[in-house]
């Protein structure tokens, strides 16, 4: 399942939701707000999204990784709004029969999110704020993103 939310992410629930009785491996990735960026100190990050398009992109990633790595469980949640240092902005949990597939799939998902999901973030500090320069969205490839 995928979701885009404004409230804090319950990471235990994410891991639990992705678990499966037939899986021998689960991998959880948490992206969080750090206290610095390329331009200096950061106190908060504001996240916004083109919600409908972002949900479509996350669903496409979900379908791809489940099929490509034969996943038994998949949960990805992106949080929006104003987040303080240390808060979780994205949580990804996958489960599979063996660990190799789970590690690879989880790594792929976060890379794909950064390249194909319309989410923007603005770093905020005492000195001001700046929109983080990421990548330009491109036409989605049929067989994956990365």
């Amino acid at each position, binding site marked *: 399942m995928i979701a885009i939310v404004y409230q804090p992410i319950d990471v235990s629930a994410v891991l639990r939701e992705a678990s499966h009785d037939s899986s021998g491996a689960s991998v959880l990735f948490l992206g969080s707000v750090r206290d610095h960026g390329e331009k200096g100190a950061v106190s908060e990050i504001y996240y916004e999204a083109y919600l409908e*398009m972002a949900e479509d992109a996350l669903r496409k990633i979900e379908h791809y990784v489940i099929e490509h790595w034969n996943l038994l469980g998949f949960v990805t949640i992106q949080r929006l709004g104003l987040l303080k240092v240390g808060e979780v*902005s994205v949580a990804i949990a996958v489960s599979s029969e063996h660990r190799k597939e789970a590690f690879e799939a989880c790594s792929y998902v976060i890379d794909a999110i950064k390249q194909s999901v319309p989410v923007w973030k603005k770093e905020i500090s005492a000195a001001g704020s700046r929109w983080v320069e990421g990548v330009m969205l491109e036409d989605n490839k049929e067989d994956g993103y990365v």
Partner: protein
Amino acid sequence: MNMAVDKNQSVLRVKLFGLLREAVGINEVTLILADECITVEGLKRDLLVCYPVLASLNVPFVVAVNRKVADNTAKITSCDEVALLPFVSGG
């Protein structure tokens, strides 16, 4: 931008995000289409004229049509869902 609309003209609504939204100060701008449709390239040109702040930003962006990134030759009508997307930085 408020402009009188002729009955034969149609109004295209364009969503803005990130620094483009912040610079213009609103979530959505409108453009009166002189013809039934406009290309993505034409849309970019007209928007930069109607909203000079977008031109002054001088940042790259792509155009999404019906939630898919469209190339410059794609045609848009007032029925389409259109958005300007600056560089993304999710995760």
